[in-house]
């Protein structure tokens, strides 16, 4: 099997899985219980939270555990919107966001919020001038992802935040950092709120977190009893949280070296594919090497993905969450409908081997030649 869909999700790390099972078995008690078992779970939960907050250099109380990035995005966007209704109803986002952001904003529009989409240049970089222009006194929130999930374009969040705060000091910046964590350095202090997820960094599914700067108040989406965090009431998922703490620690190891390695694999694929007729490489100078997007002129991406599957090679279309539609990110960058409708995402990991890439390239060419010939007839 050659798995090249790491940006959709990753296989769980063995050590992380060990922590998950061991915690599930040995620390099953409710951390809110008063007895010794509960206190033990509480200690473990506190240690795990502290490890995470230390790794991100934030306060324990600024971390809210969620079921994943989608929930964290909801908590952030809806929470900020509802808490700041009196101040304004305007929200800005980019054209390069994950579909979950757009769906939340559609919902907020039904509540009377107004959404603007900031332009980007042909490299996918946010158009700073346009951002400046779009910020109004009533703008309460800007949401821009750290790394785009389809083309891998990386945004300079620190600079974006400076621009925003200069125009309107009360506008908050949220960033979906799901595709950035574990691939490039992330800094929560560049933003006011951030979402990440464990399953993209070799952690378990069903756990993620929202970072929220302690100065910001947001309205909780879920209501219930809670000892830790009023944003996410209910019994804390200690085993998942512990597993995520470990996954984050492991993911932040060796970032540079891993990125260099993945960049080499990426370049090798680009070199071989860019010369093939009918293939376009959707890569800009801001794309991170882990995500490589290509467009096929003549072959439908689903067909191609199933053809590759015959050889046990697994690729992604746009993002796994919106398969079948056109790639909004490719559209936003290249403004070419045809190019945006036939995209395939090859996502790489430091676990990917050179040998896997060699095999992938061989079978890619075989499938491509076969399917292309059919279309040509």
């Amino acid at each position, binding site marked *: 099997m050659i798995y090249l869909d790491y940006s959709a999700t990753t296989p769980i790390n063995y050590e992380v899985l060990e*922590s998950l099972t*061991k*915690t599930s078995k040995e620390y099953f008690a409710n951390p809110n219980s*008063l007895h*010794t078992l509960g*206190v033990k779970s509480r*200690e*473990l939960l506190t*240690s*795990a939270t502290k*490890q995470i907050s230390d790794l991100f250099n934030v306060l324990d109380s600024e971390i809210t555990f969620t079921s994943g990035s989608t929930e964290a995005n909801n908590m952030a966007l809806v929470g900020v919107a509802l808490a700041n209704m009196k101040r304004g109803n305007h929200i800005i986002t980019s054209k390069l966001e994950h579909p979950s952001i757009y769906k939340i904003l559609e919902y907020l529009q039904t509540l009377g919020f107004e959404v603007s989409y900031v332009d980007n240049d042909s490299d996918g970089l946010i158009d700073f001038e346009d951002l400046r222009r779009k910020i109004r006194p009533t703008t309460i929130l800007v949401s821009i992802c750290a790394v785009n999930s389809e083309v891998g374009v990386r945004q300079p969040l620190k600079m974006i935040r400076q621009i925003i705060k200069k125009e309107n000091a009360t506008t908050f910046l949220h960033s979906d950092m799901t595709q950035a964590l574990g691939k490039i350095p992330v800094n929560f202090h560049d933003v006011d709120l951030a979402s990440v997820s464990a399953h993209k960094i070799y952690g378990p599914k069903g756990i993620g977190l929202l970072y929220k700067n302690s100065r910001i108040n947001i309205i909780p989406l879920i209501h219930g009893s809670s000892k830790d965090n009023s944003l996410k009431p209910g019994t804390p998922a200690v085993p998942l949280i*512990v597993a995520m*703490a*470990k996954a984050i*620690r492991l993911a932040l190891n060796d970032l540079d070296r891993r990125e260099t390695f993945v960049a080499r694999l990426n370049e090798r694929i680009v070199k071989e594919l860019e010369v093939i007729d009918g293939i376009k490489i959707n890569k800009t100078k801001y794309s991170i090497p882990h995500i490589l997007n290509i467009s096929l002129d003549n072959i439908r991406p689903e067909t191609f993905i199933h053809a590759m599957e015959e050889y046990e090679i697994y690729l992604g279309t746009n993002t796994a969450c919106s398969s079948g539609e056109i790639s909004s990110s490719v559209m936003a960058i290249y403004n070419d409908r045809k190019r945006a409708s036939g995209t395939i995402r090859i996502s790489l990991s430091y676990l990917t081997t050179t040998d896997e890439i060699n095999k992938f390239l061989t079978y890619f060419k075989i499938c491509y030649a076969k399917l292309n010939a059919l279309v040509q007839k």
Partner: protein
Amino acid sequence: MQKLILIKYGELTTKKENINLFISTLKNNILKKLEDQDVLVSYDKGRMFISKKDEDYTNIIKLLKEVFGIHEIILAYRLESLDFNELKNNVLDLVKEENFKTFKVETKRSNKNIALTSLEISALVGSYILQNKDVSVDIHNPDLIIYLEIRNKDSYIYFTKIPGLGGYPVGTLGKGILMLSGGIDSPVAGYMAIKRGVKIEAVYFESPPHTSIEAKNKVIELGKILAKYNNDLKLHVINFTEIQESIYKNIPHNYLITIMRRMMYRICEIIAHSNNAKIIVNGESIGQVASQTLTSMKAINEVIKLPVIRPVACFDKLEIIDIAKKIGTYETSILPYEDCCTIFVPDHPVINPVIKECQEYEKLIPYQDLIYKAIKNHEIIRINSQETNNFKDLL
């Protein structure tokens, strides 16, 4: 030039006879503090030197700020030469990196064999900098002070002095038993005793099931903070339930607290003897609660012979809180868990207990047996100053 840490001893330089004990204890305390840091520590009568291969001292300075007996922590450059020309050129190289408009040079020369006096060295180095850099001298309010020290074999150059904690190296004055509750005062009292060179062992009284594990964990957390200054901390946990219940059942309630404190004192004295401690330290503050009136203190204190040191006795609550915040115990101390003093509290505790009555009442319970039993079965927790992660394998 080698970058290293230079340590100036504080008050201990006045201890002529014991100076070797003080310095070698300080060295051991520093080595213990920096045990994960891979450093070399050497010393002479006036200074201690800490060097590390990678010359990254950020973390080390942070840790040294928790060691008593240090007057100043200095990040210095060592020049292994006494040659004046070499010295002035090196100073010039170093100040090129610094951003300043005005400066002065201060020289200390413990090596009296070299030809130039301290003032002459300062003047010559100063004029050399003036010739080579667009800056001026301001001896009253300079942006940068260039400190030079000429010692026997080496010269040292530095710009900033970071104040240390002062006090005496922990252990140089012997051992003391700290009565550690979960409150605000006792950790501060412990800290102040440690500051004067007393190595602390703590005693905590628990009364399960009337007190919770969380209350005990809170004390362990406080112990961890004290352990940072105390090298480590031995925590004696005494199960006080039987004594407390027996007092509650048999003794008039207005005397509960007085008798309870007398029992605690007795237990602490026995633990002090068996651990070679010379004093008892606690967080009593005059007049704060019924058991801390002067009459109460006298009635309680009479059961033991060891000196009881009460570092915060004459401090206002707010002054104690300030110190607690500074040393980092406050946040933990105010966590809301019952300790064994706050349960079994009578509505009207006696504020002027009569010693005779205390003695009469105590005859009503077999307290010697109970104390013997409590001490025989007591739990000892060794708290390490290094933050240990109990869940290392899981996280």
